[in-house]
């Protein structure tokens, strides 16, 4: 599954934008969440703005036709397409004109996930509270505002503006400190993208790279067999988190195991690779990490927009834990990792 196909999994939750029905819409919070989680049902096209705490505003032009046809153009400041992500439902291309490179792979298929949609919904319900916070117009369409709060911390983690047909017109993700971490807002949205171009042919001179290596969602046995490594799991997880799946990430001559945990909204990743793989974690773009202790050993803790990063090693393995947990919880998870 390509990276963009995965990110599309979120936005394609919503269906098209049929004309609003005349009858008043008075949903409850559960209904709004269900609508937002549903798979897209009809075509749409439009433009949305992206903002994150670590990058300038970007504009994305998007069109979608079910089943699984999508096209996203990430525009630069002049309105020229900087990157293109396109799928005809069978093949996904990510094209970067500046690098003269195109990645070809399979589009997202959330059906491969080990947690099915009902289980994910159940996780959200168990770990997060929902409340409606009124209604508002976004890109000319009426939307119910849904707030998602962590039951663990009481903090707001997401705010969604959901149209009656389920299209998420605006979404804000909040960080641990309560500040806005990222936001997506449609500035224009229309009901039809029929006739859109969902194919791609690499221009001459463009490098074509395969974007798939291994299945994205594996059970432990499958990942151990694919990597030749024994997956080491933590015996302690923060309340609400469950094991979801494993992936194998190749890097040069080494293979890393990526164990994923989920609480329905946030993910926790544990990467493991042999200590003798002679790989040194490069922190260059993240600044200097803090030195902390994990058990009796020295570890490093850094912070990125995606969450905290904790790196430590044992006699046989190196581990990297990434998640949006407190430093103390990160340490507790790390200390509970059991080597086989």
């Amino acid at each position, binding site marked *: 599954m390509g*990276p*963009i196909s*995965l*990110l*599309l*999994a*979120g936005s394609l*939750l919503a269906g098209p934008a049929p004309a609003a029905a005349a009858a008043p819409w008075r949903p409850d919070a559960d209904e709004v969440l269900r609508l*937002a*989680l549903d798979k897209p049902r009809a075509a749409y096209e439009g433009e949305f703005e*992206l*903002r*994150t705490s*670590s990058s300038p505003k970007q504009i*994305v032009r998007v069109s979608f036709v079910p089943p699984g046809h999508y096209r996203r153009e*990430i525009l630069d400041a002049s309105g020229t397409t*900087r*990157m293109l992500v396109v799928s005809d439902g069978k093949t996904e291309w*990510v094209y*970067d004109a*500046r690098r003269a490179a195109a*990645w070809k*792979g399979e589009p997202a298929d959330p059906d491969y*996930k080990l947690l099915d949609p009902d289980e*994910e919904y159940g996780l*959200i319900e168990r770990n997060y509270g929902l409340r409606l916070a009124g209604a508002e117009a976004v890109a000319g369409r009426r939307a119910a505002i849904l707030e998602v709060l962590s039951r663990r911390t009481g903090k707001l983690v*997401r705010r*969604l503006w959901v149209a009656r047909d389920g299209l998420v017109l605006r*979404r804000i*993700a909040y960080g641990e400190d309560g500040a806005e971490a*990222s*936001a997506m807002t449609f500035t224009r949205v229309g009901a039809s993208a029929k006739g859109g171009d969902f194919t791609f042919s690499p221009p001459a001179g463009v490098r074509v*790279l*395969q*974007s798939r*290596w291994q299945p*994205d969602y594996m059970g432990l046995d499958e990942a151990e067999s694919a990597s030749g490594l024994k997956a080491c799991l933590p015996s302690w997880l923060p309340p609400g988190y469950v094991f979801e799946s494993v*992936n194998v*990430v190749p*890097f040069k001559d080494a293979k*890393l195991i*990526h164990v994923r945990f989920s609480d*329905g*909204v*946030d993910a926790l*990743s544990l*990467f493991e690779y042999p200590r003798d793989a*002679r*790989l040194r*974690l490069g*922190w*260059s*773009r*993240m600044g200097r990490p803090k030195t902390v202790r994990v058990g009796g050993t020295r570890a490093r803790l*850094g912070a*990125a927009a*995606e969450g905290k*990063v904790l790196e430590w090693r044992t006699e046989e393995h190196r581990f*990297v834990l990434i*998640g949006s947990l407190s430093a103390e919880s990160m340490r507790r998870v790390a200390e509970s990792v059991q080597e086989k």
Partner: protein
Amino acid sequence: MNCPDKEALSAYLDGETGGSESAALAGHLEGCGLCRARLKTLRAVKAAVSAAVQAPPMPADLRRALQDMIPRPAPWWRRLLGEGAGPLRPAAAVSFCLAAALALVWAARHRPGRSSRDELPVEMLLAAHSQYELTMPLAPEERIVADLAAQLDEETAGGANGPY
């Protein structure tokens, strides 16, 4: 007890001597600085060699050189005349250190598959984490779109075939 030979010391070091022999050797080592030094050198060489367990065999000339550096017991007549270990101590100490250092350097240089350490960009792991997070129902997809260019940089440079 006379000074034990190299084989006996080596067996003692490896725990291969019997109880009475071990006790006799231990007693001798307590009173013989030279043998303690020989034992120390042997231990260092063994440690260095075991660090290179899967390394190719140590070249014969280096092995001989290392063995030559292990001080031998002085001849009986020299000990008898009281010219034992005393004058040898500084030279022995230098030999021990040199032998151990040589063995360690050799072992380190001959470790199998030795290469300079590769850098695993933390961004690659963050990208894998984000990509998984994006499969979740309320994922902030904007984060990965915003950082896509940087992630492609890492993935291209990192030796992977691209996004995964």
